[in-house]
Structures are given as structure tokens and as C-alpha cells.
């Protein structure tokens, strides 16, 4: 479990630095694999069935379906050119580090045991970094990655503090994530058709 947390933090740090669409989706996939493994490990303490269902769902939805759909979309997008701005990248990495420290401070205040504290800090970092990615990135695909990171963080947090939600709710949440990505992929596809780009900063007509 300790190794998983270290890996997870590493992957999220990498995510803040990746600016290419394809690589960021791969990073997201790696992150989801780690979350699925964490899910399996945490669930094994409470019986096999309890562990296997969320594990299989995470694997199916977040590792296989979502990245595949996004990679397919990337192939169809007309401009794969990246907008590089180094300042932006460095700031977001720094922000992620700050979020990690913040997570440890918060976990310390709740007086969790050291193991739970590590996971707690990692989840806080994921939630905050996901939010930051959605705000700071301009490309639609990268924003979707931020959203999934946020969702993964909340999911992991739920896993450590309550051993997961009731099964029906959990199924519903997975279904929602699935539909959300489908809807976002449709919108991004349309965006690239009618704006010739997936840069969301071109959409600034509606104001006031």
C-alpha cells in the first residue's frame, strides 16, 4: 500500500507537467490503475466479493473505457498542436506540492494513524490538483483529465474513510462517470468540428 501511495503521488505530479494530449490520457490511465489496485488492497480486508466488484468496475470504466474513448477522440481532433507555456506547468507542479503539504497538515489535525494519513494526504492532493487542472488548462481533453482526477480523489477518500459507499450508490456513481465522459467526448468532438480547435479559451462569447 505504501508503494502504491508513493506511485500515485508521483503520477499526479507527472500529470501536472504533461501538456500533450495523448500522454496526459496515458498518465490518467496509470493513475486509474493505481486507484484500482488500492481499491483491491483495501477491499481484501473486508472479504473478496467486497473487493472484487469495485476493482472490476474501476478497471472496466476508468482504465479501459474512458481512456479508449478519449484516445479515439484525440485521433479525430484536427489540431494536435500544443500550447506550451512553461510558467503554467511549473506553477501547477508547485501548487500540487503545496496541496500535498496541506493534505498532511489536514490529516495531522484529524489525528489519523500514519498509514491512513498518507492516503488522506494523497487524496486531498488529487482533489485539489484535479480542480487546479480544470481551471488552469485550456485544452478540453486536459480539463476532462482534471475532472477524472478529481473524481478518483473523491472515490479514494470515500474508500479510506467509509470503506466505500453502499453498493447501489457505487454502481450509480460509476454509471454517472461513464455517461459524463461520453457527454464530454461528444461536446469536445463537436467543438473541434465547429471551432476547428479544442482550446476552450475561444469560447468567450457569453457574458453578463
Amino acid at each position, binding site marked *: 500500500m505504501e508503494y502504491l501511495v508513493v506511485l500515485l503521488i508521483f503520477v499526479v505530479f507527472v500529470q501536472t507537467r504533461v501538456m500533450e494530449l495523448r500522454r496526459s490520457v496515458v498518465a490518467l490511465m496509470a493513475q486509474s490503475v493505481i486507484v484500482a489496485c488500492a481499491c483491491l488492497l483495501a477491499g481484501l480486508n473486508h472479504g473478496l466479493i467486497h473487493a472484487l466488484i469495485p476493482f472490476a468496475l474501476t478497471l472496466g470504466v476508468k482504465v479501459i473505457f474512458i481512456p479508449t474513448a478519449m484516445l479515439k477522440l484525440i485521433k479525430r481532433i484536427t489540431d494536435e498542436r500544443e500550447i506550451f507555456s512553461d510558467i503554467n506547468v511549473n506553477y501547477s507542479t508547485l501548487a500540487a506540492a503545496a496541496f500535498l503539504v496541506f493534505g498532511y497538515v489536514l490529516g495531522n489535525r484529524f489525528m489519523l494513524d500514519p498509514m491512513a494519513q498518507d492516503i488522506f494526504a494523497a487524496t486531498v492532493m488529487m*482533489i485539489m490538483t484535479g*480542480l487546479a487542472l*480544470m481551471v488552469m488548462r485550456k485544452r*478540453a481533453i486536459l*480539463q476532462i483529465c482534471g*475532472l477524472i482526477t*478529481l*473524481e478518483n480523489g*473523491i472515490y479514494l*477518500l*470515500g474508500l479510506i*474513510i*467509509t470503506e466505500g*459507499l*453502499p453498493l*447501489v*450508490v457505487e454502481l*450509480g*456513481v460509476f*454509471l*454517472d462517470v461513464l*455517461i*459524463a465522459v461520453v*457527454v*464530454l467526448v*461528444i*461536446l469536445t468532438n*463537436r*467543438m473541434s468540428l*465547429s*471551432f476547428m480547435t479544442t482550446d*476552450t479559451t475561444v*469560447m*468567450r*462569447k*457569453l457574458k*453578463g
Partner: protein
Amino acid sequence: MELYYILGLPLLFAVVAATNMLGLKLLHIADRLTATVVFGLILDMAVKFACHADEPIRQGFFYVDALGIWMLVIVGTLYLAFAWTSKAYLERDTNIRYGYLRRFTHLEGRFYALSHLFVWTMMLVVTVDSLGLMWVTIEATTLVSALLVAFKFTRTSLEAAWKYVMVCTVGICLALLGTIILYYGQLQAMGNVQPLNWEFMAHHAQMLDHDVAKLAFAFLFVGYGTKIGLAPMHAWLPDAHSEAPALTSGLLSGALCICALYVLLRATAIVMPVVGLDFISNMYVGFGLLTIALAVPFVLVQRDVKRMLAYSSMENFGLLAAGFGLFMPLAAEASLLHMFNHALVKYMLFYTAGTIMETYATKNMMRIHGMMQQAPKTAMFWLLGIVGILGMPPMGVFFSKFYIIASFFQAHHPYLGILALVLLAGMLIGILYHAMRMLGGKPTRKSAGELMGNLDSCVLFLMLAVSGVVSAFAYELPYVGTLLTEAAKIVLGGVQ
């Protein structure tokens, strides 16, 4: 058993419409038939329920009490109105700039399928029994309606839909965090019996930990507040409401936002005994009044007719939040009534705005003059709707707004009451000024003519009349008074 029919029929129709099996004529007929049957079943259920109102219906994952029935009636009424106005709207939707459907006729099936699916998810929101499932269904409404907002796939509608999904999903994720924290509190206090079940939690609320409940409430308030469109998180609302097709805007404004408010009220009823009334009441009233205060200046400078209506919706949601936040029987009943009135009148207004956009081929209010001369029927409905939503005496909204303001004074917050009155007056000046300018003056467009048909004007008139009659005689009419009182008791929880 009835509940399964109510929830099954729209889904069945949506599947059939999506496959494009039916011809266009049959599609319209099936649409009306489904909505009418569903509405009939809902009314039947409401009447049966009102006879012994303190026994909630429990079936599987479903749980319906007085509050749920009241919400179901609101959604069902809008569903009926949608079905009976949709044919006229679709046939008129020929505009080059703002119309889309008639030029691609195969899209009508998809539009119907999505709309019915949207109504179906809203019905699920008000009938499921656990807070977790409520979260799932609220998120589902966001996703289905995002496709409806972007239905025309113009540049502006894409922008609105993108903003809508992004802002609402983040907000709703925070609400999920709140739900998880609440679940944690429940596990700590009561163990793993009936996880997140609303009824169970509301009965055993005292056992929750104070800090955990407060944290959960903060997250839930921000999360669902985003979806309702409360002030600092309202950025998506005017865009989505103004860019969606007119029928969808009506459903979004009339039913969707109050569904989110309903879930927030349910969650509040759980945490209230632990967190204490003051904190919760301050949050509701403060953010409610802030929402009205932010909406007023935007209405004054507005040029887009549907955007103006969207800001007017914000004003009404702010008033609703403030009204519920007083936690008094009178205020709660008035707010529930206001939900109903606002839904009917706002749907009717959005429909009329859609007609005006078709007539004049523009959304810009500065270019619309002389409606009274050119399109008298549309002008009449526009005037009636505007007068209705602003809360002038003969219409239904007057009663509910009056009771809400009166309860401010009854709750010994006279200054807040005066503040609310001043803000409402600002709203009235802004909207009335724009509406009157559109009605009067000399017509500048030669080609514009009357578009409002017979059937849809009947429907619109009926909506206004029903809202007026129900709110004027709420306690004289059979069943309505009982339902309102029982529903208000549920909203208030233990507080009297």
C-alpha cells in the same frame, strides 16, 4: 405499483423515440399520450395519498411522502405542458439562426427521447429513498440536460453546454464529498444499518457528530447550491437557460433547479437537529438574498430576452432559498407554493419567448418593437406572464411572494424583509421596462406576424389559470391544503 408505471412509461417512450421507429405524426401522438397518462397517474396517486397523508409509500428503492408527491405533481404538470406544446414549437422552429430542428427532421426523435429521459431522471430524483441515489440522479439530470442545452450545436450553445457540465459536475462532486462525510458520520454513530436511507437518518439524526454534520452540510450546500444557481456559483445558469431550446429552458428553470433544492432540503432536514438552526438559517437566507441582489443589476442592462428570464429565475430561486431558510410553517408552505407557481409561469414565459424569437428572428430585445400591433396574441401572453412572474395581484405568484415576504416580518427580521422588498422592486422595474418597450412603439419589421396557434395558447392560458386558482384558494381546494401542510412539516423537520 402505480409508481412503476409513472417511472416506466417515459423511459419506454424515450427508447422508442430514439430508435426512430415511429413516423413523425405517430411520434407526436405517442408523446402526448405518454405525458397525459403519466400525469393522470400522478394526480391519482396524489389524491389517494392526500386521504391518509402521514403514511409514505415505500417500494424497493423508492420512497414517496408528501414532499415527494408535491414535487412529482410539479414535474408532472410541466411534463404535460411540454407534451402539449412541443408539436407547435417544433413545427414553428424554422428560423435560420435560432431554429434547427425542421432542417434536419430526423432529429425530432432524438429531441423527444432526450426530453423524456430528462423528465424521467427528474422524477427519479424526487422518488428515490437514499441520499446517495439522490446524488446519482441529480448528476444524471445534469448530463442528459447538457445534451439538450447543446442540442442545436451552434457555437454559443456548445459554449453554454461546456460551461454547464464543467461547473455543475465540479459542484456536484463536492456534494458527493458531503454525502460521503455524512455516510462516515452515520457509520460512526449508528453502524451499518440502512446506509444513507433518508427516512432512517431523519429519525436518528440526533446521534450524528456535530462537527462531522457541519462539515457535511457545508459541502452539500455548496454542491447543490451550484446546481440551484445560488449566487457565487451561478455562472452556468444564464448561459444554459438562454442557449437551450425554449422548451428545454422551461423545464430547466421550472423543474430542474427546484429538484436540486429538494435534495438540499432533504439533506438539511437530517443535519439540522445536530448543527443547529442558526447556522443553517443564516446560510440559506444570506445566500438567497445575495442571489437576488446579484440578479438585479444584470437584468437592468440585459439585451437578450431569454437571458433576462434566466436572471429572473435566479431571483426566484434566491427568494425560495431565503423563504425556506426562515424555517417557519408559513414561510415553508409559501415557498412550496412558490415552487409550483414559478414552474408554471416560467415555463409559459420561456415558451412565449421562444415564439417571440421566431417571430422577430432575433433575441435582442432592443430590436423588438410594437408587438402589440403585430402579434397581439403573443403580446398578450407575454404581458400576462411578465405581470405574473413579477408578482402582481391577480396572478398566482403574487400570493406566494406575498406570504414569503410576510413571513420575513413575522420571523422578526423586518430589515431583511425590507431589503428583499427593495430588491424585488428593482427586479420589477428592470423587467417591466424591457417588456413594455417590446410591447409598445411602432413595429419596424414588415414580415413579422402572429405565430401563436390555438392549442398552445389554450395550454398557456390554462397554466396561468391553474397557478392562479391553486394559489388563491390553496386551502379551500380539496387535497391541496393537506399536501402543502404535510410537505411543509417534512421540510421543517423537528422545528416548529
